[in-house]
């Protein structure tokens, strides 16, 4: 469950080839980190899977079903964007209620993060008054709200204080252990090391390498993921 | 950085919208009555030019105009000044002849044969088909219970050749159509003192036809036809070469011209309603020194035409809804020394069209919601427009020259955009009633499709600043700030 297959995916913004005939398989029930330098195509890839970006060519399937015009597959997806942008005049409660409404008011929602991330007090303030951190927390609440089978977390802890950050990470781990598919992008390698099962490294719209975290650290002989990856990249360049 | 952009854009948008809104407010038609007015100020404004107006109009017209204007009862005005009044016998002394089914005379012609001058023929209800009847003696022919005289579509019905004949109470129907002869329901020839009243004329070629008849009274007749082509229809009331005829309280519809006068002198046309006739509601030529008062002319094919006449007074008439490419409320052509006063012109394509007419005074008229209120060609000279209300017309004044030989002074213009800081009731800036766009439409009629467009508004503003096409001298130096009061005299 929750296997995402990407075949020959290409997309360009103007002259910039963001994704270049990308082939990728994301295993279900694991946490996959998508890494790469700025502009490598991480966010575009995630947006393609979500349907926010219409790729120029290629095919994406989730559990064998092709991602197309029918938006129903998104019912299974939770998304926490990199920059949390919301209608400025609405409150978080209204947004939550609205999305709940759009999904047909399911009963078994999970609102525990509201309390765990301590955003109870912020729910009735218009978004324009919320700080970046609080927006981020609301994003997290929304991503987990409907107990999705697949979670996309785009830089989830950027801008969060250490306490909330670890609350969130615990939650991700919990979801991972519960067998959900998690796709993570992050610049914080310790976070990736802590959460991810495997790493996909993008460069210029292609996969530079793809390996499990354990393997990466093991074969490189480095003490942590960050150094392991650095070594791996330079090794390639040298070779 | 990226957060700031929308905010900046929003500010720019707000500024633009506010700016344009202000511009709009400045351009939007300013409602009337927004200036301060002093009590009594408009009276001085309108009376002074009115006095001049009287002086400039023909003397005869002016004296009568004053009377018509001042007397409360229009009949007094008529008794005093229009020498008509056919003499009614003080007491009836003649013999009465009764006509009708089962009466002594079955046929009207039988009674006409035996009646002497001074007798009365009373016709009971019935349908009389007797061919053309001629009345050659001074008798009264009175219908009782609306007897029908039928022309059977063949011939004229009643012809009067004697003086002092009275015809009353008949339905006259279906006089014949002819290209050669003017068949009419009632023809009066070469006589005087006739009275034709309270008759109903239906579907006749001509209705009432007076030729060389003098001192006649035609009133309270209901004259209807359903003509569809000018060539095959005659006039409702046709007056030719008549003196001192009164036409009152008639209703005429569906004829070629409602009321037609040619070579009529001292005629009084009063309180008639002439509507939906094929050509003119009222049409007169070569008819000097006549009065037209309190009539209603509505929805006629071409409105009202006044031609080749002088010393005419038209007052308190209503010219309504005359629509068409050559329809006028009032067309004046080669008319001199006349007064057009206190009339209502509403909803006409062209309310007043003046061609080759001189020394006319237009005052106290209300020109409302016409296409063109006044179209005055430059061959019209020394005409004087004062104390008129120009209200919501598409175009107020149009002329065909940059010269202006006529005077507009102290009128009220709803399109006037000036102000009255002096507080004297007249605008401080002169008003130019001729719009650039009316000139454009005059030369390129298709341009009418741009009427009331923003583009044309901009052109108008430019022309106002720097007039290059509109006549510079055609201005109203004393535009009134409020409508000329005086109620609705035509009502």
């Amino acid at each position, binding site marked *: 469950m929750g296997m995402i297959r990407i075949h020959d995916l290409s997309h360009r913004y103007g002259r910039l080839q963001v994704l270049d005939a990308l082939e990728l398989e994301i295993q279900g029930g694991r946490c996959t980190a998508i890494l790469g330098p700025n502009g490598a195509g991480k966010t575009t890839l995630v947006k393609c899977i979500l349907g926010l970006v219409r790729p120029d060519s290629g095919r994406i399937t989730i559990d064998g079903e092709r991602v197309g015009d029918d938006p129903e597959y998104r019912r299974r997806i939770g998304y926490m964007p990199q920059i949390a942008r919301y*209608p400025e005049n609405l409150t978080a409660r209204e947004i939550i209620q609205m999305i709940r409404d759009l999904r047909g008011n399911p009963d078994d929602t999970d609102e525990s993060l509201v309390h765990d991330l301590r955003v109870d007090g912020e729910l009735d303030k218009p978004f324009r008054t919320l700080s970046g951190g609080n927006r981020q927390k609301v994003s997290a609440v929304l991503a987990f709200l409907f107990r999705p089978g697949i979670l996309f977390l785009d830089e989830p802890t950027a801008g969060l204080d250490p306490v909330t950050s670890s609350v969130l990470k615990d939650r991700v781990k919990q979801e991972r252990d519960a067998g959900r598919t998690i796709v993570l992008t992050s610049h914080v390698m310790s976070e990736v090391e802590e959460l991810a099962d495997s790493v996909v490294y993008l460069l210029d719209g292609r996969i530079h390498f793809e390996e499990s975290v354990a393997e990466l650290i093991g074969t490189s002989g480095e003490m942590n993921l960050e150094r392991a990856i650095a070594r791996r990249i330079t090794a390639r360049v040298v070779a | 950085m990226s957060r700031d952009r929308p905010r900046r*854009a929003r500010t720019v948008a707000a500024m633009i919208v506010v700016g344009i809104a202000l511009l709009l407010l400045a351009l939007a038609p300013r*409602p009337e009555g927004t200036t301060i007015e002093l009590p009594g100020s408009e009276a001085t404004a309108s009376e002074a030019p009115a006095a001049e107006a009287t002086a400039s109009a023909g003397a005869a017209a002016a004296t009568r105009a004053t009377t018509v204007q001042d007397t409360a009862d229009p009949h007094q005005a008529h008794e005093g000044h229009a020498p008509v009044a056919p003499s009614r016998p003080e007491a009836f002394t003649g013999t009465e002849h009764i006509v009708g089914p089962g009466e002594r005379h079955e046929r009207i012609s039988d009674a006409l044969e035996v009646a002497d001058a001074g007798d009365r023929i009373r016709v009971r209800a019935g349908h009389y088909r007797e061919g053309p009847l001629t009345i050659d003696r001074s008798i009264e022919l009175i219908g009782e219970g609306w007897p029908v005289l039928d022309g059977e579509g063949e011939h004229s019905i009643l012809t009067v050749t004697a003086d002092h004949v009275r015809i009353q109470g008949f339905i006259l129907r279906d006089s014949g159509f002819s290209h050669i002869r003017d068949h009419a329901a009632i023809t009066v020839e070469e006589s005087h003192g006739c009275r034709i009243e309270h008759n109903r004329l239906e579907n006749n070629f001509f209705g009432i036809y007076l030729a060389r008849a003098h001192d006649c009274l035609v009133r309270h007749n209901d004259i209807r036809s359903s003509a569809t082509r000018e060539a095959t229809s005659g006039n409702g009331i046709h007056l030719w070469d008549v003196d001192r005829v009164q036409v009152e309280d008639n209703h005429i519809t569906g004829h070629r011209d409602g009321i037609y006068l040619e070579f009529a002198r001292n005629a009084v046309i009063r309180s008639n309603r002439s509507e939906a006739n094929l050509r003119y509601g009222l049409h007169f030529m070569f008819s000097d020194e006549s009065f037209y008062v309190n009539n209603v002319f509505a929805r006629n094919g071409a409105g009202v035409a006044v031609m080749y006449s002088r010393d005419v007074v038209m007052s308190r008439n209503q010219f309504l809804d005359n629509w068409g490419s050559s329809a006028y409320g009032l067309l004046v052509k080669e008319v001199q020394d006349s007064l057009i006063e206190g009339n209502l012109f509403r909803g006409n394509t062209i309310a007043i069209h003046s061609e080759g007419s001189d020394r006319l005074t237009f005052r106290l008229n209300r020109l409302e919601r016409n296409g063109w209120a006044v179209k005055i060609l430059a061959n019209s000279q020394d005409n004087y427009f004062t104390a008129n209300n120009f209200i919501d017309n598409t*175009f107020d004044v149009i002329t065909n020259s940059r010269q202006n030989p006529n005077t507009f002074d102290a009128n009220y213009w709803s399109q006037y955009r000036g102000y009255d800081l002096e507080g004297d009731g007249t605008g401080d800036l002169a008003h130019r009633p001729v719009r650039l766009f009316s000139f454009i439409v005059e030369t390129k009629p298709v341009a009418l499709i741009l*009427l009331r467009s923003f583009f044309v508004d901009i052109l108008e503003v430019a022309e106002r600043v720097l007039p290059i096409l509109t006549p510079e001298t055609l201005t109203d130096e004393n535009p009134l700030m409020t409508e000329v009061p005086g109620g609705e005299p035509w009502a």
Partner: protein
Amino acid sequence: MNTLKIARYQLRDVMRSRWVLLYGIFFLLMTDALFRFGGSGERVLLSLMNVVLIAIPLVAIVLGTMYLYGSREFTELLLTQPVRRRSLFLGLFTGLALPMSVAFVLGTGLPFWAHGGLAGGTGSSLLLLLGTGVGLTLIFASLAFLIALSTEDRIRGLGISLGVWVFFTVVFNGLVMLAIYMLADYPMEKPVLALSLLNPIDLGRILLLLSFDISALMGFTGAVFRRFFGSGLGQGVAIGAMAAWVVIPFALGLRSFHRKNF
């Protein structure tokens, strides 16, 4: 279903930002003032006509462009949910066009009702004015969406919107006038009629003219225009053209929205 839900949330957002309220009050105050100073319902309608033909396209296109840029976050949020792009687009459009139309109709209609300006034949003229206003709202909101979707730069999008407005309010008629003078030797009635179908503001203006300036239009050339727009065919064509002006930019906008990358 989702369209309505989305529209409802957008409506709440729009109402809270208050500009739509100001927009309604603008019409309310203007109409009321015209009644207080001007008098008859007919005259008020005539004055309003100019405002409607200028202000509605301007506000609809400028605010519409701003609105869609401002709804970017909302759009992105909802596109991650099980929501069709078509529903979202319709919801966004409704969220703008509905409150604008309602504000205009109430702002203009209420004073008429309050001042008893519906007497006589003005009732149908008012309906025509309101209909034209709503039509122009839809048309220029669609154009605004199309513009906002085709350029990412907000300032530029706003500039294009204003340009489009200026074109339809002023430049277009200047070109018509030019054509009339340049081609004076040809019968221009029909070409000019055809041209007027290409400008929604002109279309609205002519429909209103036929209601207000009938006396003038009965003369000369006017009769040609009147005969055309007064006939069943002409009215069908006019309403069809107006509808096309709503549908075509809307459909293009929808297509562009469908293909857009967020």
